[in-house]
């Protein structure tokens, strides 16, 4: 029998089912095997559901404007970047494609540009 995770996944991907649940929760939950706590989390307390869903997205995409602190530039100047020998060398390394770990030269380029 489908469980809570199956239910939550269906809420995300099946809009008709989501609306059905909002209209008649008991009927929509009928085919799911849920504990009393899980049922309460879905029908009573938003806080319990929040805990069940895990880490909030707002923790992930945090600004990094402090990375731009040392820069007086208003935008990224490609010509100026290409004029820097360390950037040019990093690009050459990426293009050469000879490194055993192809990620390494790309990461080195990232460190030069931001």
């Amino acid at each position, binding site marked *: 029998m489908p469980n809570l995770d199956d239910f939550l996944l269906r809420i*995300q991907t099946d809009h008709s089912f989501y609306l059905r649940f909002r209209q008649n929760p008991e009927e929509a939950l009928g085919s799911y095997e849920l504990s009393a706590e899980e049922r309460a989390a879905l029908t009573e307390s938003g806080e319990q559901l929040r805990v069940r869903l895990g880490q909030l997205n*707002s923790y*992930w995409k945090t600004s990094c*404007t*402090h990375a731009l602190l040392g820069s007086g530039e208003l935008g990224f100047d490609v010509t100026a*970047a290409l004029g820097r020998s360390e950037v040019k060398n990093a*690009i050459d390394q990426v293009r050469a494609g000879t490194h055993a770990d192809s*990620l390494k030269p*790309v990461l080195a380029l990232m460190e030069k540009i*931001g």
Partner: protein
Amino acid sequence: MTDAGKFSPFDIAIVGLGIVGVHQITREVGETIQRCRHTFVVDGGFGVVPYLKTICAEVTSLLPFYERGKERLPTYRRMAAEVINAAIARSPVCFATYGHPLVYCYPAILIQRAAKLLNLRVEAFPGISSLDTLFVDLGIDAATDGLQMYETTDLLLRRRPLQNDVPCILWQVNAIAEPTYETDRRSADQFLPLQNYLLEFYPPEHPITLVLSKTFPLLGSTVETYRLGTLASDLERGPQSGNLYIPVVRRRAIVDYELLEKLTVGT
């Protein structure tokens, strides 16, 4: 399942997935992901990655690169490098993040910079941002009195002047003056510099609303209103996430009566 490998006008797509999960993935973004060979995701929303796996052959979550207490900048460089590396090997690839992909998203900045240097074609597709959901949660129209918005740390860092006759949004108050990835609760002391700075522009009794938009269809948004005079301690006790909305103290007076007269003719 996918159309990956067919003609693509880009090597890298940068897409936004919205705030609430799959419900807010636009048709444009869904179609784009479907046409990519590999999608790299920054989204912790329940069910988002499983859903993306149904429309894209290869999906990699970048969330494991975050480490508590570790500086965010090397993490963001690593994320961008993964995307660029994959694009060089086998394009088209996709970088997908919750919200809007070019708002508060340093990996997207790095991807665009590196792509320019390496002659990779990038196309960005917008997603529903927390600004959009904030308008809905508060029922406000930014056209009425305009809008000013700043990242909280940047506001303090540059001591940016605030106009108290224009609504203000302060982003990412929970990340105030914090260069590392942290999930610990912040103390009132850490919010006090913000409270003191805002008191230079607003009276202590002025309301400030914290908005944490819902991140799953069955959740409700959190909307809590505090007073500026006790903001730091209220934020300490609050959800420790979300953005702040500061309404105007007063509306700006009309100065150009000649223009007003033209606008009101016949009304």
